[in-house]
């Protein structure tokens, strides 16, 4: 069984593209590649992860934008109402600085939000076939007769701590420390923090500082707007004179409306602002506080949730990445040199590889809109095509889709193997690696929980608990899911 998997990778094969030719996940809408098979194509067009690219690869997001439009909408709505309804009043009664400060904060929030959403979080490109073959050769073969292959881990010593590096079956490499595979984006992300549906992207090494600045500035903005709105209402409510004064102030805005309605409109919008800000302030302030703690201890949300360094999993374990100094920890997370994007989105594919991949494209485009379950079938077809071109081990399909665990294993990596034997293999593999996260669909869990996110700040950590845990330990987790399901079947 292991030898069967090894046969898939032929290191003597001619060099194949560094990105596997599975194009149908990720193409931005509107570009029809069938019309231009010969122009040199950029690497983002054949990127195997579940991402969306815009502006010819300059901007990228997760394929599922989550509630990112809602985030943008709420920020615009609240700030808009603030500038329209509160600022004029407060400028007259307090100071001109208020819209200035509000404006600066708003611009800051917007820029950092867009940067968090549109930046590559630190995605690791998948291993080339030659690399994957080399790693497979190095993994100790404990015995071909073994029903269960050993879990693929490698131990390294980092600052006197033993760290286990897990093998990612999707990306065909041992994940570096602090790297995790995001099941939603189907990518390994360095220093993986969490996948944030509010920004529609993963938060990892490269965009964590943007994310942190975003939530801190957003908490300032919401607190500021909340304060201004409260002041506005308090000033308006100061006796009848205040109300009359207000009525006299605002005839210009709605000249044809009776004064009563003008006041009600202002009150209505102010009340809307107040409600949004009230719920946001607590949750976002809580989140900022939590992330400030993480930054100061050089932890990721993923590590904190799993309790990797808090001693739950072992005695005397401390965070080996911490510099033992809060200031240095903060600097290393927020002020370190900005690492480059490793996926070279805008690089050109070599011409011969473009021709190969365009051949695959022409056969598969009509399947673009099918559901996730059918994507596995498409990928298998695509993989069979590419296997005909070059013996390439199938990638991505099963591990990236924990929701479709039942159907995926039937189309799992070893294309040439007997499916029933493959099922048994994967079940066998599941047991040593299975975790205790349960077999519920991770997507459903975190989406549901995120709707409650604004309810209280206490849920901030619990929310991440439920939505981060399925994302981490990707290589072994879906096997755990599948193992559980197979256990019920068999």
């Amino acid at each position, binding site marked *: 069984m292991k030898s069967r998997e090894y046969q898939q990778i032929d290191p003597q094969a001619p060099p194949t593209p560094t990105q596997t030719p599975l194009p149908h996940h990720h193409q931005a809408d509107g570009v029809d590649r069938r019309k231009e098979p010969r122009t040199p194509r950029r690497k983002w067009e054949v990127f195997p992860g579940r991402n969306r690219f815009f502006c010819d690869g300059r901007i990228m997001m997760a394929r599922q934008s989550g509630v990112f439009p809602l985030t943008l909408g709420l920020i615009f709505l609240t700030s808009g109402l603030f500038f329209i309804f509160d600022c004029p009043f407060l400028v007259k009664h307090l100071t001109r600085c208020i819209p200035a400060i509000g404006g600066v904060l708003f611009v800051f929030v917007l820029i950092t939000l867009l940067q968090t959403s549109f930046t590559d979080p630190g995605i690791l490109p998948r291993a080339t076939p030659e690399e994957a073959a*080399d790693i497979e050769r190095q993994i100790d073969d404990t015995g071909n007769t073994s029903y269960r292959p050993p879990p693929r881990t490698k131990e390294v010593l980092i600052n006197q701590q033993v760290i286990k590096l897990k093998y990612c079956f999707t990306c065909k490499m041992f994940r*570096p420390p602090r790297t995790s595979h995001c099941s939603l984006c189907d990518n390994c992300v360095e220093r993986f923090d969490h996948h944030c549906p509010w920004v529609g992207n993963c938060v990892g090494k490269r965009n964590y500082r943007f994310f942190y600045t975003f939530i801190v500035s957003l908490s300032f903005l919401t607190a500021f707007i909340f304060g201004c709105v409260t002041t506005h209402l308090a000033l308006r409510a100061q006796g009848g004179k205040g109300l009359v004064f207000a009525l006299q102030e605002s005839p210009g805005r709605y000249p044809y409306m009776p004064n009563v309605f003008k006041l009600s409109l202002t009150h209505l919008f102010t009340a809307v602002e107040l409600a949004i800000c009230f719920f946001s302030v607590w949750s976002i302030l809580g989140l900022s506080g939590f992330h400030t703690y993480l930054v100061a201890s050089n932890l990721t949300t993923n590590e904190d949730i799993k309790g990797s360094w808090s001693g739950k999993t072992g005695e005397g374990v401390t965070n080996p990445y911490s510099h033992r100094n809060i200031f240095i920890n903060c600097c290393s997370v927020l002020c370190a040199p900005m690492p480059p994007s*490793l996926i070279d989105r805008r690089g050109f594919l070599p011409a011969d590889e473009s021709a190969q991949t365009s051949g695959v494209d022409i056969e598969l485009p009509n399947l673009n809109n099918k559901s996730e379950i059918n994507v596995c079938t498409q990928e298998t077809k695509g993989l069979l095509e590419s296997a005909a071109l070059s013996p390439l081990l199938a990638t991505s399909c099963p591990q990236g889709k924990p929701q479709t665990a039942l159907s995926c294993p039937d189309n799992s990596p070893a294309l040439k193997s007997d499916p029933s034997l493959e099922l048994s293999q994967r079940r066998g593999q599941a047991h040593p690696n299975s975790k205790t996260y349960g077999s519920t669909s991770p997507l459903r869990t975190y989406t549901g929980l995120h709707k409650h996110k604004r309810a209280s700040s206490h849920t901030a950590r619990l929310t991440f608990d439920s939505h981060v845990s399925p994302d981490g330990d990707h290589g072994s987790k879906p096997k755990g899911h599948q193992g559980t399901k197979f256990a019920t079947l068999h």
Partner: protein
Amino acid sequence: MAETHSLQDMRQQAAVAAKVFIQRDYTNGTMCQFQTKFPSELETKIDKQQFEETIRTLNNLYAEAEKLGSQSFIEGCLACLTAYAVFLCMETHYEKVLKRIAKYIQEQNDKIYAPRGLLLTDPIERGLRVIEITIYEDRSFTR
């Protein structure tokens, strides 16, 4: 990149015998460092000292790229104050060092590795995971 084109030409003209992958060394944490262990496949091709010298220099360059110095601190603070908009216009410190690394690798290839039928691939093309050394069959091949 010009260097890639010339290296690709070389690659196309000679047959690839094998590829050796130098993996990352994580003993100092997540910093980009490569193992200096001399692979057995290269024993007949290149001098061990030379190889280790190349890897050590690369490690030093990567350490410099990721160093938390006063310059990076100032750069980080300035970037934060401008909502990181400067990253859109300015070349970061890391990118500058990556250019130096690319130049160094090309130099090494020209002077040392190509005459021996070897080719170093810039790790950035492999996502900083490995240093890929391609061994060519045609030992008499020279540039």
